[in-house]
């Protein structure tokens, strides 16, 4: 094997070691963070993070996350959140009543 080929393989090996080493360190650091108790998040209880106020990821649980922009324009409000929470797997109360099969 020529010197050039050896250098090429060594450089690739070092780069691979850097990439997989960084990944390993990152995975370990996140794993430690997730297993550690977080007293602040527990006390505050806000489900989101400090990213994007008035952007799709505002802290308002549910609504502002999915309803950026349309907010208050007539008819443009996020209608699928008005009668209940759309993906929830339970029947939400509504103003409909059924008596003897006739609404």
């Amino acid at each position: 094997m020529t010197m050039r080929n050896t250098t090429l393989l060594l450089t690739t090996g070092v780069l691979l070691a850097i990439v997989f080493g960084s990944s390993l360190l990152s995975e370990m650091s996140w794993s430690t963070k997730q297993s550690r108790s977080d007293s602040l998040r527990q006390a505050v209880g806000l489900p989101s993070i400090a990213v994007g106020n008035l952007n799709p990821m505002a802290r308002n649980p549910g609504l502002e996350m999915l309803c950026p922009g349309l907010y208050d324009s007539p008819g443009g409000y996020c209608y699928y959140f008005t009668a209940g929470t759309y993906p929830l797997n339970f029947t939400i109360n509504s103003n409909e009543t059924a008596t003897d099969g006739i609404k």
Partner: protein
Amino acid sequence: MSRFKNLFNYALNCIQRYRIRTAVVLICLVVSSAVFSSVAFIEDGLTNEGELSLKYSPDLTVQGVESGRLTPVELRYLGYIQEAPSVTAVVPRIWGYANIGNTLLVVVGIDLSNPTINFAADYPLESGTFLNPESNNSVVIGRGVASLLGVGVGDVLTILTESNQPRTYIVSGIFNSESSIYSGDMILMNLKEARTFFNLPEDKVTDIMVYVSNIDAAQKGALVNLVAREISDLPNCRVVTKNLLLQAQEAAYGDRSGFFSVVWYVILIAVAIIAFNQTVVVGHESKFEIGLLKAVGFSTTDIIQVRLVESLLLGTIAGAVGLAVGIFYDSVLGAPMVADFMMGWATLYPNFTIPVAISLQTVLFTFTITIVPLLFATVIPSWLNATVDPDIAMRGARA
């Protein structure tokens, strides 16, 4: 083994011999994999942080609704919710946005009698102390807020409330930069002060946090839904579960990185076309060489193997360089431009650390998408070259 070693060496020599092809393919793949990995690492980091917040969020959040719009919820519901089966804690919370220092910040008022708050716990504070239940006007602020307003522990902060009345607070603590992703834009105070700040009536709060007893995960979902159904019988109420928030968060970050993914797919297709084109060009240039190799005993499979090993090496080198660039760009440079897009308005806060997660899954996926398209782009031209008769190949190359 010796045969493969020789083919491997020959492939390495080919990479160096066809410099223009190697450079073109490497540059294209490095750029595309660096862009992809950089965005993916930030997306993973934000999702991890979001999931961490959700882990500690209440099982259910009860909000008020009027005319389909969110409003403060009535405090009298507290007793009713408390009586729902398996509910262990019901905690009122007041929070909202305030434009302070020309920046939108989050003001949070927590009930200090909340049983989930542990005052003996170690809070992520850079300096000072956490909220004191006996002190009314103390606040704990995020690192970003402290930098923005230029205040430290013990300083007096005068803020205009929503009713345009000046209100004075003493900064009792500042959260550290490690917790900035959660607390960077936060002013934390007790519930009573937050009520005054937002000028909320005594009988209302922003939302009610509901905690359901901890049972095994399989049963918990059904139990939470049962409680949610019960609470949703209350008038002018909306119930949001933790699971729904998780879905919303994943959708929000997925959408953002989705824009980049589309651009990246376009780049990848372009790279595959360029790689294909370069292989065809190299195939034409190397006709004589292939004819010679076949004349001295190389089989069609050997030649295809050489080209595949070349592509495998090129893809691996490009993936490794691209990933290393992505890691450096995110972790050392702080991902300029990409961070602006992914972090939204959070870029307004000073000293904001971007969460980066270099997951093994993303690393392996990046390698897959730098190697596999290159292999596909190489195999057909090399097969077409390798199947030509050596005599015709050498004559054709000379002609």
